[in-house]
């Protein structure tokens, strides 16, 4: 099957700055994909190249098999982009904005679908309000609506929840999950790693313009070695033998790092020898955040991983 997005050997230079350094990426239809990376890693540049907002210095990108430069009309019909910045045209109302946006795609009578998006994004009260007078959260919703007017099979969201309150964030994700269930391919960048972990099946991590990791979320987390255990002890002192493993001690909880689960035996033995009683014990699973931090710190020594 044609991939939803296919990026081949994309390089982008801004003068002396290498924003993207040979990106290869394939995102399949129906995926919920996250693009992660620190600020300046090249996430937005990559998105802009896929969207045709920026021309790559070399390499190619395709959306649903259509080259974003040579077949830009088809490629752009397949793609909806929610930009990171809160941009809007201050001359028009929400409904006008959405009608113009569908008109750009040559869609004639789109009022039914526009009403539906307006309803789903809870914009009904504001439909005839000028864009200028909307709050930031409302503007964000309009950006999402604008990306959806032409029912694109592939939707890219560039940090859609930055600066958005919890309620809207959850409503937004519910809606986007619904779209994904209906068969839309979703690509998002986010700084909230728990979001990526909860929503996405696969992630790419970018650093300095290169993909350092391309993995399913599950593999990524299970591949990371090392566990943490959290203990509450009586008396509340860690035996000397275990001091080396200690990471933190906070509000009566000791957190220890162990490499393998079998090390747990030694911890127990040391505690027994010190006649310390275990009041509570938890094994903490590594989460995406931990993986992310680890990889970003060691990316210099890491070869790109592919699936």
């Amino acid at each position, binding site marked *: 099957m044609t991939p939803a997005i296919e990026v081949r050997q994309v390089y982008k230079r801004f003068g002396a700055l290498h924003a993207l350094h040979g990106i290869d990426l394939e995102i399949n239809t129906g995926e919920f994909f996250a693009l992660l990376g620190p600020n300046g890693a090249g996430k937005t540049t990559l998105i802009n190249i896929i969207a045709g907002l920026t*021309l790559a210095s070399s390499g190619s990108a395709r959306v649903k098999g259509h080259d974003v430069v040579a077949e830009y009309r088809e490629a752009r019909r397949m793609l909806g982009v929610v930009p990171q910045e809160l941009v809007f*045209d201050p001359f028009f109302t929400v409904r006008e904005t959405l009608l*113009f946006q569908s008109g750009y795609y040559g869609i004639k009578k789109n009022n039914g679908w526009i009403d539906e998006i307006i309803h789903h994004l809870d914009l009904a009260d504001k439909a005839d309000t000028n864009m200028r007078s909307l709050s930031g959260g409302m503007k964000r919703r309009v950006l999402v609506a604008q990306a959806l007017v032409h029912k694109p099979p592939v939707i890219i969201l560039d940090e859609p929840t930055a600066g958005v309150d919890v309620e809207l964030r959850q409503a937004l994700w519910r809606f986007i999950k619904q779209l994904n269930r209906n068969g839309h391919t979703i690509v998002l960048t986010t700084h909230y790693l728990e979001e990526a972990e909860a929503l996405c099946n696969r992630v790419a991590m970018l650093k300095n313009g290169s993909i350092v990791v391309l993995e399913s979320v599950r593999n990524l987390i299970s591949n990371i070695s090392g566990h943490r255990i959290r203990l509450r002890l009586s008396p509340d002192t860690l035996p000397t033998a275990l001091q080396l493993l200690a990471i933190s001690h906070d509000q009566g909880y000791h957190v220890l790092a162990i490499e393998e689960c079998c090390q747990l035996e030694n911890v127990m033995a040391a505690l027994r020898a010190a006649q310390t009683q275990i009041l509570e014990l938890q094994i903490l699973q590594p989460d995406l955040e931990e993986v992310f931090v680890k990889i970003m710190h060691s990316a210099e020594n890491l070869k790109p991983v592919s699936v």
Partner: protein
Amino acid sequence: MNGFLTLLYKELLRFWKVGFQTVFAPMLSTLLYLLIFSHMLEERVQAYPGVTYTVFLIPGLVIMAMLQNAFANSSSSLIQSIVSGNHIFMLLSPLSYQEIFTAYVLASVVRGLAVGLGIYLITLGFFEIPLYSFAWVFVFALMGTALLGALGIIAGIWAEKFEHLSALQNFIILPLTFLSGVFYTISSLPPFWRGLSYLNPFFYMVDGFRYGFFRTSDVSPYLSLGALAACFLAVSWLTLQMLKTGYKIRR
């Protein structure tokens, strides 16, 4: 509506929503020019035989207002979009660069014609203005506003901030229009300045436009039309190249 018509309609609605500022304000300022200059010079100057200075001045002021507003329309629309970032909605869509070009130029033409027609109709209530050939008048109005509309696209994309744009407007567009023979015929100028005027494309717009009213002009209207057509082709080619390669807007 297809994409092109949507963009055109949006551009028309954009200036019409603020029509007080984009259509009526320039009409007022032009009428003020007319009031003052005609009061001062009516008795002293006669540009063409048998034509009072005020009547001579009217077509010049009409086309000057049309040109300035055509330029202002595309340039201010684009720079506002680009500075605020909302131009990406147009760039994300399947609109071709030719469609974008044509929509912006046509919107400029419409605003220019609206302003010009308004001024003309008002002055018609007070003065008897001959109209030799509507066709010539219309052709020069169309060519002039289209050329300035295209120049406005270049300026709107090139300018990085409003300062750049107002510099272009005040140091290039304004002097070239003022020195194009709006207020005088260039035959009244010393040879050096007359020669220089032939290099000013705005001169051909004004001279040809005025020919349509009075059947008198400094150069043949065909020469003016040719010069304008050449300018329009060159500027359009450059504008289309900029849009095609994504100069500045698809960095």
